[in-house]
């Protein structure tokens, strides 16, 4: 695989230009720059604050039904996972995954002093900071810094989006973002850019930008070629998330060696008529994940792939007057993979008798989840990336 990449660079139209990028090229040819343990992590961000209590439903809990007289999901409508818990009826495929032992659910994940602003809480999750800390880098970006400290090889981590999230920005390395490989290619492969990157630059800021530009052009050609080479034959839904999973599938099947993919769907900010909009979003996720998992299984890759979901916060336990819910605190996370060590519900459902101002009190810290994923899935130094020891879970 390493050979492939080196060959690609030699043959690329930038070969001449790259003469002027000794560091950049050298990095690409270093084996450790693209060495990986074969595990792939896909982060699915549920933007807007998904209502966890209508996702994994406490079907026997009177408090739940009392506080949500209009929007609660009854036991007979939920897809039962255990005596106590059901999954939302629009997550049918996730129920199948659960039955197959390919889904794990960690309930009641959050952090101390929760913030209810979408933006701020999302920053806390993406940077893995405390509530009172302000960190300008993301946890996956810092993973890139660690895993890829000597290289400028952002195809290690890819965000399927026009813009890059904080989560994917490290202090030295940043992931690359694109909605589809063709668009990135069209945006970056300009003759003018190719002309100007061949000049040397002595100024630090300018050379940083020229390096970013050079690697973007180079990577965009590479990614575009790769994405075409193994375009998937599966029929994915035509929804945005369907397209995004299709892009990821074709890249996984190529030899691009990306370890982290990041995508998002929203908005889960369901202040009004929640059930309809949540249901639509769940259907889109469920259908896309269904095709994707099938695709990966047929290619023998599902054991090495894990999809992890998160949202910036859950919602209040009680519904509001508009048949919606307002911003809350703790929430569940899903882990979907053929390679889970523990499956099903990993811990008890949230305790609805013990609330703080009407909100759930988190019992699991999301940084412990990150630590687990970094250490046990991505094989990296979580203490360094997260700045402290958070302990580990044992589901992977």
């Amino acid at each position, binding site marked *: 695989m390493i050979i492939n990449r080196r060959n690609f660079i030699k043959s690329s139209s930038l070969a001449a230009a790259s003469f002027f990028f000794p560091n950049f090229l050298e990095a690409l040819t270093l084996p450790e720059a693209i060495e990986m343990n074969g595990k792939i992590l896909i982060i699915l961000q549920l933007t807007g604050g998904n209502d966890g209590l209508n996702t994994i439903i406490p079907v026997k809990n009177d408090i739940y039904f009392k506080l949500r007289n209009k929007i609660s999901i009854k036991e007979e409508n939920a897809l039962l996972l255990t005596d106590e818990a059901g999954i939302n009826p629009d997550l049918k495929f996730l129920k199948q995954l659960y039955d197959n032992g390919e889904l794990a659910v960690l309930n009641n994940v959050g952090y101390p002093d929760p913030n209810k602003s979408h933006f701020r809480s999302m920053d806390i999750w993406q940077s893995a900071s405390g509530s009172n800390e302000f960190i300008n880098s993301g946890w996956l970006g810092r993973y890139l810094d660690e895993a890829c400290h000597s290289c400028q090889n952002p195809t290690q981590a890819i965000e399927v989006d026009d813009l890059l999230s904080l989560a994917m920005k490290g202090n030295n390395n940043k992931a690359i973002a694109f909605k589809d490989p063709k668009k990135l290619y069209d945006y970056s492969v300009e003759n003018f850019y190719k002309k100007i990157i061949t000049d040397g630059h002595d100024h630090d800021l300018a050379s940083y930008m020229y390096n970013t530009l050079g690697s973007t052009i180079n990577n965009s050609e590479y990614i575009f070629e790769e994405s075409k080479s193994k375009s998937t034959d599966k029929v994915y839904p035509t929804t945005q998330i369907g397209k995004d999973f299709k892009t990821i599938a074709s890249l996984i099947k190529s030899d691009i060696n990306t370890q982290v993919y990041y995508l998002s769907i929203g908005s889960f*900010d369901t202040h009004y008529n929640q059930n309809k909009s949540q249901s639509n979003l769940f259907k889109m996720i469920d259908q896309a994940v269904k095709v994707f998992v099938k695709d990966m299984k047929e290619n023998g890759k599902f054991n090495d792939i894990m999809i992890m979901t998160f949202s910036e916060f859950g919602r209040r336990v009680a519904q509001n007057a508009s048949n919606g819910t307002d911003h809350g605190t703790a929430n569940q996370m899903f882990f979907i993979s053929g390679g889970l060590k523990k499956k099903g519900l990993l811990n008890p459902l949230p305790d609805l008798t013990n609330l703080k101002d009407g909100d759930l009190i988190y019992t699991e810290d999301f940084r412990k989840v990150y630590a687990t994923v970094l250490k046990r899935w991505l094989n990296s130094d979580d203490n360094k990336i997260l700045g402290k020891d958070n302990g580990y879970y044992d589901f992977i």
Partner: protein
Amino acid sequence: MNNFLKNKHLISRAGFGIHHNDIEKYKNLSPKKLYQELKNNSEYKVLLTDFPTVTPEQYLEMSKAQDRKPLNQFNNLYNKNFRKSWHSQMINSPYQLREKMAFFWHGHFATRIQHALFNKEIIEIFRKNALGSFRDLVFDVSKSSAMLNFLNNQQNKKAKPNENFSRELMELFTLGRGNLYTEKDIKESARAFTGWSYNELGEFTDNKKQHDAGEKVFLGRNGNFDGTDIINIILEQPECAEFITKKIYQFFVNDIADEKIVKSLSQKFYKSNYDILTLMDEIFLSDWFYSNENIGSKIKSPVELIVGIRRIMPMDLQNKDTIYNFEKILGQELLQPPNVAGWPTGLAWIDSSTLLIRMKIPSVMAGYKTLDIEPKPNDDVNMGKEENKVIVNQKQNTITIHWDSINNILNQDLFSILLPKSNEKLQNTILQFNSDKSRKHLMISIMSTPEYQLC
């Protein structure tokens, strides 16, 4: 270095970049004279918006309604309009120094709220006190509804102190993280600020019933301190002057601070009793400000980039929002700093996406290229609605550049007008690339370089 280059450097830091009408003037004026002119042109006028505001009483009425939609809608429209109005001052106003300074304070005392009237109030505090006394500024901000609301000081009560405000006051606004103070000082000063709140009309209130009048120990001193005492004690510390001076230096001069210069500046700032203009005089009238290492040493923030383009290249927008959307996708929206620590700076602005978009925007404005980008959703504003794509093409949201009004520029040395420093190699490459193209095309090409991101 000639006066033109120096003046261009000065206006890119003490303002938002060179204006297309000022080219000839900047060739002849000395930087000292130009700075004097910028100072003379710094009258304070309240921003006018063409969207009708409401009185605090009317706002209160709206906020009491069961249906939140009209209130959200008002906040969105008013905030948008207010942003527009400030933006247009940054482009057109001769009061460049004041607006640039206010822009700095907006990132320093950062609040991110939706309440339109609170936003208006705090931005006007920045604009009014921009070049005045830092002391007044700290007091006005600390008593503003926007800051009290954003840092939850209305919940800071005798029975249950909330430390949020006192923590950020020291960590971000005055002393710097862990500098001089301890966790204990945060707790004690939080007690002193108990009762600082605002009434339902947004006016500051000092609620004696909620105030803890007991004795506190703060920075080694004992007394029955209240909020005013705490701020005064902080301002007595030379470390406060040093922290602010360093931040101003990094914003206006160079991300890498020259410790010796900062030290000497901060002593003067302290002695002047925190007179901001005195500090700015020291910076902009110095020789070192114009030294080679300080020119082109900053990456323009998205607002600086877009406002700068509009100052040099006048244009009409089919949809006025397009321009704010450019800033949004590049990561900086006025009234929406990411958090209380303000916007990150320098290389934080640059990644593969934002760099390509930055380099593409001038061509998009000129109609050579199209743009189709989906911004990250902002659910704090959208309330569950989808984010609109930012699209610019021949049919939608077109931008018309007034080439006629910059004819005089087109035939001059565009490189020296547009880039902070001369770079012969880059110049040759661009000239070669544009050999069979128009001067307009050349101007756009120069603006589509990494160097153009610098100031």
